[in-house]
């Protein structure tokens, strides 16, 4: 299934929750969706017979200036097609529904995105830092991040 077909299908169900499809060769095409409906959309992406996206390749958090973005790269093992889903949330209130219950692999990916970007995944069972120490402050991959001078009395960098 091609990205525009997926887009049409999703549009017919979720109407205005699906914001836009951007196709810009050679870049990957992606569909932007409303973050509040993300869980339901992902659920149908996994379970509907014509989508069958059972494999979450990657989950990325991004800093886009005033927004934070979450990017989902999906793949279907049976139908062998791919799609990229994006959702944007304001930086002040970065709340995105967790897809951990849909794809268990999202567990650690979401923890990583929370750890490095500071996206708050709602519904995640154990949203704690994963790569950085548990008591680290700040989200290093944000563009406005400045590394702390000291950490527990040790010099950073």
């Amino acid at each position, binding site marked *: 299934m091609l990205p525009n077909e997926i887009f049409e299908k999703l549009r017919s169900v979720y109407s205005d929750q699906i914001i836009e499809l951007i196709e810009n060769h050679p870049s*990957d095409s*992606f569909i932007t969706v409303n973050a509040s409906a993300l869980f339901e959309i992902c659920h149908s992406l996994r379970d509907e017979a014509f989508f069958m996206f059972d494999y979450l390749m*990657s989950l990325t958090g991004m800093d886009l200036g005033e927004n934070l973005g979450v990017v989902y790269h999906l793949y279907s093992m049976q139908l062998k097609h791919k799609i990229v889903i994006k959702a944007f949330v304001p930086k002040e209130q970065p709340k995105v529904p967790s897809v951990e219950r849909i794809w268990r692999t999202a567990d650690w990916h979401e923890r990583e995105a929370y750890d490095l970007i500071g996206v708050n995944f709602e519904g995640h069972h154990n949203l704690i830092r994963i790569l950085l120490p548990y008591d680290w402050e700040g989200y290093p991959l944000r563009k406005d991040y400045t590394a702390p001078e000291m950490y527990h009395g040790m010099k950073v960098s």
Partner: protein
Amino acid sequence: MSEKKRLDLEYSQLDSDRMRLNVGPQHPSTHGVLRLEVEIDGEIVTEVIPHLGYLHRSFEKHCEKMTYPQIIPYIDRMDYISAMNNEWPYVMALEKMLDIKVPEKVEYIRVIVAELNRIANHQIAVATFGLDAGAFTPFLFFFRDREYIIWILEKLSGARLLYNYFRVGGLAGDTYPSFKEECLNVIEKVRKTNAEVMDLLIYNRIFIQRTANVGILTPEVAVNYACSGPVLRGSGLRYDLRKDEPYSIYDRFDFEVPVGKGEVGFVGDCWDRNIVRMQEMEQSCRIIEQALAQMPETGDVKANVPKRIKPPKGEVYMRTENPKGDLGFYIVSNGTDKPERLKARGTSFVNLSVIPEISKGYMFADLILILGSIDIVLGEVDR
């Protein structure tokens, strides 16, 4: 509440006969600085909590400060066992963004070095797995043979482990005159050792008893956890990017994708994951042989690439079949010579996340074997 009291309360919540054990970060079998917090009931594992990050080197943050070619050495340091394979999806992603067609010879050399490195990786994987089971001798057999592969890669790139050999649109250098013969020699040696190890280790009664029916990973769970590579194929799913979406020139070669068949136990146990690696080495040998035969004698090793690599605004997710599974790079370009965001989807990171799921209820000694059968590299887990 005083600190002492708080601790007492926490301990009282534990069953009196359960023990919390920290496996790692310094432990002979965690394959690096991984820490597993294990709760054991006698010898039975009841809970596993991995704690990562002991080798975190801010890879993604560094990349945002580097120009595109400068990132390649950093990528080597992710999965340092198979550095050649790591570089490939990254340069392919950039080639896709810049719309570069790489010369024929480059593709062949890339295939050959990647498959050589795949053999080296699987040798380490099987060797350390055997070591976890207590068999020391196959470990050294494999390390002896891996040395020959490393010599070839060293002659090509100048480095033993962290090659920095792939370039956007080409390679750092051409092959050397005796390259073909040396590759064929190595293949012969690899096959000989593999046959020996099959007898010595893989079909050893004790080894089968230790690994069969241990750490069973069903295909459904494997896909849900997005496992890939030998871990997924060990569960019986025939999923290999080299076949399923042939990148580069993999559609020109005749090879098979070995999957776990449950020969000595259930499909998806540790033994299956291990035998898949053994069989993949043979398939890699076949690919190298075919690639060596087809490789053009002369040709450029560098396409026409602009001096400053500035991909147009846009984003690309590119993945290849790393020895450990899918390695994906998600590159977002803002039109300058530095990436806006670079996310590496570490194979080991994703494969490791399945550990708490599949190790419950097995014995403590099995946990070590399950961890070994997943074949992680902490450089890639922590990045």
